């Protein structure tokens, strides 16, 4: 068996360190080793986007990243968004606009939204649809998700100081 490798990763602001097999996928590390099961596994084949997280400021499908590739990195998952009982504006948007039904795709949708709003504080409907191209939803028909993203963008712009509406984690 291949030698285990030590990894140190900051997840939602907390430092974690483990010995892992190089073949361990990041999504399995987050769910099975760290116990953060908010990140979902849908297809495991890089298609559905349910496993989307932020890694060093970029949305990635964590089923297609090795844990060892994230060594020394900074991860944000769905668990890192709310402040205690207070929902993050993106979560609030999904809540207010019915951006989810079964909720399976939602953690990934929300992190892809996070990526979009990090890069563009005022996306058009087309840009929103382009930005969630890598996330499949079998329930909502997407329109409510687009509404939710628009709600979140507006709310974040109201709260923002200067151009930046989100912190790049």
């Amino acid at each position, binding site marked *: *068996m291949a030698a285990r490798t030590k990894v140190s990763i900051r997840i939602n602001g907390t430092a974690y360190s483990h010995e892992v097999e*190089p*073949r361990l996928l990041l999504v399995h590390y987050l769910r099975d080793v760290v116990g953060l099961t908010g990140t979902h596994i849908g297809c495991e084949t890089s298609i559905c986007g349910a496993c989307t997280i932020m890694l060093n400021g970029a*949305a*990635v499908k964590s089923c297609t990243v090795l844990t060892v590739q994230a*060594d020394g990195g900074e991860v944000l998952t769905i668990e890192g968004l709310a402040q205690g009982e207070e929902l993050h504006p993106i979560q609030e948007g999904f809540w207010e606009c019915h951006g989810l039904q079964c909720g399976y795709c939602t953690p990934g949708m929300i992190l892809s939204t996070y990526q979009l709003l990090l890069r563009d504080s005022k996306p058009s409907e087309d840009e929103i649809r382009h930005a969630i191209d*890598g996330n499949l939803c079998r329930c909502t028909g997407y329109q409510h998700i687009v509404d939710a993203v628009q709600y979140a963008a507006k709310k974040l712009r109201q709260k923002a100081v200067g151009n930046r509406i989100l912190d790049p984690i």
Partner: protein
Amino acid sequence: MIPAAFDYLAPATLEEAIRALGTHGEEVKLLAGGHSLLPLMKLRLASPTLLVDLGRIPSLGLISQEGDKILIGALSTHYQIESSKLLKEKCPLLPQTARVIGDVQVRNRGTIGGSLAHADPAADMPAPILALAGELRATGPQGERRLKAEDFFLGLMATALSPTEILTEIRVPLLSGRCGTAYLKAPQKASGFALVGVAVWLKLSASGICEDIGIGVAGLAAKPFRAKGVERRLRGKNLNPSLIEEAASHTAQGVDPMEDIHASGEFRADLARLYAARAIQEAAKRAGV
């Protein structure tokens, strides 16, 4: 969906990576963005025993200008290319292509070097690199080699790289004067990969004559190619829709089109004709025809 076990190295320099590639008794694979290799490994279609991760060599991920060339590090992601101010201003064909690859998450991880080295016939990036007559640089135990884009692609997932070489850089020209570019693809509906993708750059003289043109075609054949017959029919001419359509009808000439469950060869050839005409038209419009 779990890859077979392998050993993992993440060298900090190119030299170390080249040494690691020569490790005897191992089936060694380079890892860039992992968005072609890891899916194959999860399906156990590839089972390397040693992965050499290029992701810790920061110098491979830079985009810069040198004289009349733009230098793109092999590890530059599709997103870096899509959002590069330098490229958008001086060589927009690459951002235009990068933007239609996969989805946001794929573009955040997938790299230009990985895409070219993998040489998937349905990949997008080979088309603009061929159209722009880009130069590729690779380093191996014997030092650096320069390869013309045209000599790089050999066939289905086969390139001129030797197993101990690393693609380090892609050089494309800085476009100046009355230039227009376009990349258009007919995507396979489920995967987004190109059934056919056509990249065009062209340059017009002050009087509107097509001084030079490069056309790269992906998806149609087992290897991406330059549509030289179409280029020849347009160089030195005043571009107009009927001339463009006539020239584009030669896109698949002498090419053996791929056939699969997504499209017959005949359909692919027809798509190539249509998308070539549209892409040339679009590039001409952007150049101000």
